[in-house]
């Protein structure tokens, strides 16, 4: 099978149509399992007690917020260098989800901070750079929505995504570069996980749930974009 075939909107459209329900179902199942594991099965934490359970939403959301931006930048590189229509569409289809997750990370983080640290917000490196990430998403969406020539909007968005991606390593490493109020890395390559295994299970389930959700939503949005921009392909695709 030729994979490149699916790089064209015409063949992608039906494929995405078949795939998104699969991912949606996976997301739902994993989320139910992960939340059950996380909220009811995983043990209480020895220092934070019950509030630590926000971790099962906070961390997946924060990771997705950062990861989706990187994926957008990657698609942006493809769109700029190979002029592929589909990667630009995927880039724009991902942005709202990324913004949502970043917002969730900020929000759950703030909610979590009050009982644990004693404050909702403090301008430390990680929180500030996460806020910047959120504004970058807002800027990306505002820019691409304000330009009504689709091709130009795609390319401008791609450039912004690439330039903005310098922020991602800053978010990630901020806790090790600067001393911060935010905790250090629980999951790191060198040290493995500093979380009890029964907590990790729930966490992994939630992370994959968020992945599957992001993919499903991105596919649905990409289909909507194709429908809007290239109605001819939709028809061909459905017929095929």
């Amino acid at each position, binding site marked *: 099978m030729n994979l490149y075939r699916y790089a064209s909107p015409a063949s992608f459209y039906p494929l995405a149509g078949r795939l998104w329900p699969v991912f949606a179902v996976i997301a739902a199942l994993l989320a139910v399992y992960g939340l059950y594991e996380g909220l009811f099965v995983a*043990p*209480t*934490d*020895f*220092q*934070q*007690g019950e509030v*630590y359970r926000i*971790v099962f939403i906070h961390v997946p959301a924060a990771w997705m917020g950062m990861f989706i931006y990187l994926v957008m930048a990657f698609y942006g590189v493809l769109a700029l260098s190979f002029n592929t229509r589909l990667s630009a569409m995927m880039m724009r289809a991902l942005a709202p989800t990324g913004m949502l997750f970043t917002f969730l990370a900020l929000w759950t983080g703030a909610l979590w901070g009050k*009982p*644990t*640290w*004693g*404050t909702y917000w*403090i301008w*430390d*490196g990680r929180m500030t750079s996460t806020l910047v990430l959120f504004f970058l998403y807002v800027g990306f969406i505002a820019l691409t929505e304000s330009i009504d020539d689709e091709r130009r909007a795609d390319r401008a968005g791609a450039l912004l995504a690439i330039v903005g991606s310098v922020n991602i390593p800053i978010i990630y490493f901020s806790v*090790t*570069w*600067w*001393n*911060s*109020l935010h*905790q*250090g*890395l*629980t999951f790191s390559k060198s040290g493995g996980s*500093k*979380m*009890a295994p*029964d*907590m990790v299970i729930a966490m992994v389930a939630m992370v994959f749930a968020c992945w599957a959700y992001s993919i499903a939503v991105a596919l649905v949005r990409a289909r909507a974009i194709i429908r809007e921009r290239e109605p001819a392909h939709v028809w061909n695709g459905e017929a095929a």
Partner: protein
Amino acid sequence: MKNRHRRFAWIAVGVAVLSVAVALVLKAFQSNLVLFRTPTEVAEKKVPLDRAFRLGGLVQAGTLKRQPDGLTVRFEVTDTAKAIPVRYTGILPDLFKEGKGVVVQGKMEPGGDFIATEVLAKHDENYMAPEAAEALRKAGHPVKGEIFAGEKPVVTQQPTK
């Protein structure tokens, strides 16, 4: 040919400038880019003592005392080398405990006390069930404590019985 040489020269200049930039970043991370200062820095007067700043460290075990009014507390913040006495009136975060990380904001009093206006608890990146933590402790592997920028990890001191 000539053009290619020229381009090469410019790329070389670009790379050189970028490496200077990297060197500067590394240099910066060796100095004091901090959200909070350590008790050692305070003791060595590297911190402006006449204005508000943040002080971070561990709550020295056995130093937490409630004042008669029930709201004011006194404790010492330590980085295991030096300790600074802190006074605070207000509600403490739940995670505030002896031997745990804390970040306090406030000002030094002429008397040498740090008057805190805000107390933030700083916890670490370990998550486990209380029984597991207890088991670890019993086995003689204390749970690793706080890590402060630019310093070696500090091991939480066991509360003296």
